[in-house]
């Protein structure tokens, strides 16, 4: 046994000396670490879900429009449909789907009720790869078909305002691409309820062909909507699309199409940080408390050790090693618990569907929360807990190593 081995052995045995206390500290660290990891996993999953809920039913990952369209949302900013460009983009790597869209504002009327709305003309066949709106059509209705020139699908809240149901006729009044008045009656084919509250309130979906006609588009569209194979490839894909479009176009990725999501995530992260910091503090004080107590109780013992010729640095290292053992075990258990807990919620998500109306009141539209485990969270948490353990043991350890043997042995 070398000197170092002796230090490690002493530390290890000292950890088990006061089993109850070590166990409590160990559990504090484990529970704290597990909670931090679990919370992080829930956040990751929640954010991913929110992004998905906004991107999937509506915006897609990337949109190409003429500059100015996104701010104004009027047909003035429609562009000439360019099949060469369209095909070029659709053959790019990581493109899962691409489709043409026409969207603009309008007024819908049904009997005595009318409401401002957003009309979205889409190609249902192609959009199947991009948006999932057809999934949200409530029973009793159906999504529009490509050849349907008279059908419309309404968001549920919008339909309520209009007091319109499946089979009712609603009239649309808007302005066409050429400045003429666009007016047409549509038959309500279905009502959808998507996870995005705003869409449910404002959106009416018609077929691309119907939109072309009613708005007299003359070969123009307002957007190409693109879905990437996964969220992480969006940035690269957007850059590649930018390189093949001239500067009359703007290529926007989901984060710019849905800036409120990023804002919400940033806000939520910030409040999460506070909670996590409190947990870290609890863990840190758990460590400090144990080490301090155990050092205090052993004052006389350290006095003896110093008297018979133990170097102060050896005592210092021994106490740090004790703290290392307790935190390493706590972190290990915390990781296992945190992983298990997170994993459970990746398989069985938290489902708030029951509380839908309450959630809607708070503008929360994501109802099902999956956890998403990220290894980086685990690494970060364990490094932080280790650092905290180091810092919070440093001072008691230093004090013990600097004890004066004479005074410490007078204590009993």
């Amino acid at each position, binding site marked *: *046994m070398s000197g170092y081995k*002796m230090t490690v052995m002493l530390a290890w045995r000292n950890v088990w*000396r006061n089993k109850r206390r070590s166990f409590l500290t160990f559990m504090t660290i484990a529970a704290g670490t597990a909670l931090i990891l679990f919370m992080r996993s829930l956040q990751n999953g929640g954010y991913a879900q929110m992004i998905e809920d906004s991107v999937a039913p509506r915006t897609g990952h990337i949109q190409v429009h003429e500059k100015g369209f996104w701010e104004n949302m009027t047909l003035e900013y429609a562009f000439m449909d360019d099949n060469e460009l369209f095909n070029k983009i659709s053959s790019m790597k990581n493109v899962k789907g691409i489709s043409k869209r026409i969207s603009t504002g309008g007024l819908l009327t049904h009997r005595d009720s009318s409401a401002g709305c957003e009309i979205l003309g889409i190609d249902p066949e192609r959009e199947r790869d991009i948006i999932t709106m057809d999934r949200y059509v409530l029973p009793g209705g159906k999504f529009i078909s490509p050849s349907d020139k008279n059908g419309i699908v309404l968001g549920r809240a919008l339909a309520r305002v209009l007091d319109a149901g499946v089979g009712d006729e609603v009239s649309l009044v808007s302005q066409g691409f050429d400045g003429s008045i666009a007016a047409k009656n549509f038959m309500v084919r279905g009502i959808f309820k998507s996870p995005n509250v705003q869409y449910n309130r404002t959106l009416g979906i018609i077929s691309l062909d119907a939109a072309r006609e009613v708005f007299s588009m003359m070969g123009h569209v307002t957007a190409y909507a693109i879905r990437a194979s996964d969220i992480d490839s969006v940035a690269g894909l957007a850059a590649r699309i930018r390189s093949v479009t001239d500067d009359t176009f703007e290529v926007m990725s989901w984060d710019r199409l849905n800036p409120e999501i990023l804002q919400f995530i940033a806000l939520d992260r910030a409040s999460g940080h506070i909670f996590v910091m409190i947990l870290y503090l609890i863990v840190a004080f758990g460590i400090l408390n144990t080490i301090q107590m155990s050092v205090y109780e052993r004052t006389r*013992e350290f006095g*003896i050790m110093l*008297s018979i*010729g133990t170097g*102060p640095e050896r005592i210092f290292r021994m106490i740090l090693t004790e703290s290392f053992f307790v935190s390493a075990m706590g972190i290990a258990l915390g990781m296992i618990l945190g992983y298990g807990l997170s994993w459970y919620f990746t398989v069985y998500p938290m489902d708030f569907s029951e509380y839908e109306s309450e959630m809607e009141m708070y503008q929360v539209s994501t109802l099902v929360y999956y956890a998403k485990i990220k290894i980086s969270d685990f690494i970060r948490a364990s490094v932080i807990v280790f650092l905290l353990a180091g810092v919070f043991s440093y001072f008691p350890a230093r004090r013990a190593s600097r004890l004066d043997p004479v005074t410490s042995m007078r204590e009993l």
Partner: protein
Amino acid sequence: MGKGVRMKVIEIKNLHKTYQSNGQEVHALRGIDLDIESGEFSAIAGPSGSGKTTLLNVMGGIDRPDEGDVIISGQTMKGLSESELSKIRLNRIGFIFQAYNLIPVLSAVENVEYVMLLQGVEKHERREKALAMLRDVGLEKESHRRPAQLSGGQQQRVAVARAIVSGPEIVLADEPTANLDQKTGSSLLDLMKNLNHERGTTFLFSTHDPMVMDRAERLIRITDGRITL
């Protein structure tokens, strides 16, 4: 070192030590001169508070005097750094305290080995010497017990074994029998006396127990921080 040849192990010159206690000065040592020769088996005796512990601590380099000097085998302790003092304590002096001498998480044999480990003695030799030493103090069978599983007398025997295992120039024992009953204390003294005879180990212990004083070959009386004879 043969028994006949007597050399000064420790020379003490004009030791003074004052403590501050609640703003009051306590003169624990007021000018002590003392020589201890090798092979001595001596006791420092005096009432409580007379300065016995302070004297032993200063002699052993655990505490520093305000004035005066301690010379161990010709080497002064004056002006030594903490770590130099620590090395002297480790390599040249054996300590036995009144109680709770041992490291609780180490077994008897590990406690005896501990000092040798600090000295860098090789593993095999360490274990062998420690076991032999425990045999000499009559604790062969208890060598793997932790201090809590030993009686007070047995614990003190382990402390004796630890103090002398690496052949220190002197063993300083502060009231080694004070926490033991008469019989156990007496047999601990027998043990120390034997080691003194057989190995020539120099012992200096403090006591205020007349029975212990009787067994010493030399009695150094101390009252109020002064040697009174």
